[in-house]
């Protein structure tokens, strides 16, 4: 309902003497804010990885180097959906494709919102991949000799966990650059 009310207020309010392009840009500002919410995912995951690495280093200080490496590599993977969200947000702010597009302003504005909302899906891969990084760091602390096997399965699992984040990006990019509604 909030969405519908927001839409009506944004696009159908007779009190607003804004031109269509201004409404599109206003929607883009909200979309840019929504997109970066995805960042909560990587942060939760990376924090988990940090905690597990900390635990592993405490238990086996000699494994510190390997554990830290696995943690950082795993965290880097977990960061991706956060970066993608930031990129979409910055595009909406500085390279807004909707500003120059021809079409009904309500479609353009709602597409800007939709592009931002879709990126929120990136929370999941961020948390999950961070969990994987944490467990891999823990396992490396316990069996430093298995670091390469552990890292390999971590990457494999993280790749699988990335897919829904990519789906979200695809939908967002379609709305921005190949909008079928225009």
């Amino acid at each position: 309902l909030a969405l519908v009310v927001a839409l009506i207020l944004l696009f159908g309010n007779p009190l607003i003497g804004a031109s269509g392009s201004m409404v599109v840009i206003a929607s883009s500002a909200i979309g840019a804010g929504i997109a970066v919410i995805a960042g909560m995912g990587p942060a939760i995951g990376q924090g988990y990885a940090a905690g597990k690495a900390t635990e592993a280093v405490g238990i086996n200080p000699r494994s510190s180097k390997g554990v830290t490496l696995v943690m950082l590599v795993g965290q880097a993977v977990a960061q991706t959906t956060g970066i993608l969200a930031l990129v979409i947000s910055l595009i909406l702010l500085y390279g807004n494709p909707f500003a120059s597009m021809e079409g009904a302003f309500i479609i353009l504005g709602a597409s800007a919102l939709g592009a931002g909302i879709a990126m929120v899906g990136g929370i999941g891969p961020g948390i999950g991949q961070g969990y994987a990084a944490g467990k891999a760091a823990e396992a490396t602390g316990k069996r430093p000799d298995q670091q390469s096997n552990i890292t390999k399965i971590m990457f494999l699992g993280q790749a699988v966990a990335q897919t829904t984040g990519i789906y979200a990006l695809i939908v967002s990019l379609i709305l921005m650059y190949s909008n079928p509604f225009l």
Partner: protein
Amino acid sequence: MITGIELIKACSAIGAGLAMIAGIGPGIGQGYAAGKGAEAVGRQPEAQGDVTRTMLLGAAVAETTGIYGLIVAMILLFANPFI
């Protein structure tokens, strides 16, 4: 003036975005599986094949609702029955 078709298209764009939020689930779940897989391989490196197979089988099952969300978004975008 906003036409009805334009409103449908606008709300379909938002609906497509909302559907993608489903992707949070598989992302968390499969990442958990990845972590447990890494843990298990660290403990029993000799069981790596079995562990990986079970992990991937379970992760494939966990992917489905993310795919459902993608399908609904794609229908809204490219095969919209309302337009």
